[in-house]
């Protein structure tokens, strides 16, 4: 009879050994997330600003139409997406996947930022312009810092959406899968092992938790935790 200690991190070690390319997938996922946040925040915040500050023909229709893209399930538009990305030379690449994720994220980012920009007094921008600042400088120096909590909330939304998304990534990647796809394959693939899958799930959750905690203080500002 003999007693021996178990290696509690065995599943974590085996997850990386069994799931070939898990490290590469982790890097791919990070690239996808960074690209998605950059594209969504850049286009979404500018669109949100336009919706909040300018009056133009068809504004309401434009606001509603950006949400149309979210009404179609990813699976139903997968084939056209594959063809378009293949023609653009972006199939199976992080930037291609980021473009697809950005389409959905831009819609919500523009809606969230538009409501944030509406709440920022126009007088502040007017005052900056009275002191000689251009419209672009006013946006970047006055409006954008005040809208930072809202942008933080949007970036968190984009991060979580792109990081955890599996179905689209499964369809639009072949040799460069994201980390979510690797975890999915561990659960349903040939090496199906619940212990490895659980370890993969925890590993996938860690970056999301860390990012949420980093961004938390900005989101708290939006909810009145601190003065802006």
């Amino acid at each position, binding site marked *: 009879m003999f007693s021996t200690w178990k290696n509690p991190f065995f599943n*974590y070690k085996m997850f990386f050994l069994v799931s070939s390319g898990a490290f590469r997938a982790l890097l791919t996922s990070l690239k996808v997330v960074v690209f998605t946040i950059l594209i969504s925040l850049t286009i979404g915040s500018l669109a949100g600003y336009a919706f909040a500050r300018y009056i133009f023909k068809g504004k309401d229709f434009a606001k509603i139409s950006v949400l149309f893209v979210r009404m179609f399930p990813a699976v139903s538009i997968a084939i056209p997406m594959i063809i378009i990305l293949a023609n653009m030379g972006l199939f199976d690449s992080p930037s291609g996947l980021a473009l697809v994720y950005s389409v959905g994220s831009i819609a919500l980012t523009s809606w969230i930022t538009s409501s944030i920009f509406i709440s920022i007094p126009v007088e502040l921008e007017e005052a900056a312009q009275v002191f000689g600042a251009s419209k672009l400088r006013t946006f970047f120096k006055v409006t954008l810092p005040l809208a930072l909590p809202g942008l933080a909330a949007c970036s968190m939304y984009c991060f979580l959406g792109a990081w955890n998304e599996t179905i689209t990534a499964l369809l639009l990647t072949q040799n460069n899968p994201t980390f979510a796809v690797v975890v999915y394959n561990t659960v349903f693939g040939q090496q199906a092992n619940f212990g490895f899958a659980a370890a993969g799930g925890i590993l996938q959750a860690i970056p999301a938790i860390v990012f949420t905690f980093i961004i938390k203080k900005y989101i708290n500002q939006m909810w009145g935790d601190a003065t802006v």
Partner: protein
Amino acid sequence: MNIYKASRKATFAIVVSSIIFIIFLPIYFVVSMSFMSKHEVMNFPLSIVPRFSYTLKMEKPENEKTVVSLQSSKGGEYTSLIQSDDAARINGYLMNELSLNVSKEKITELINDASKGNR
């Protein structure tokens, strides 16, 4: 306490316990399962807390191969896991099924002890 106040308290308790069951319990089980060995994960019912050590027994019945048995978490009864005299095979089995890293030399030593009837 009037009925209105009691019903409000009961509703609050139901909501809180539902949140615990729907959100925290699955998260707890995933975290717990990630630290479990394949043998623990496949056992029913699933244990709430993962085991961190195992007590094993090696027996060598006459004219038969060595039997490796595992003591249950509550102690007492043993369940036979594998019957082999091959140290490499036992080492692989313990590694994959129980997440144990017992060297082949140690296993050979234990098999020899079992055959001598010392263990």
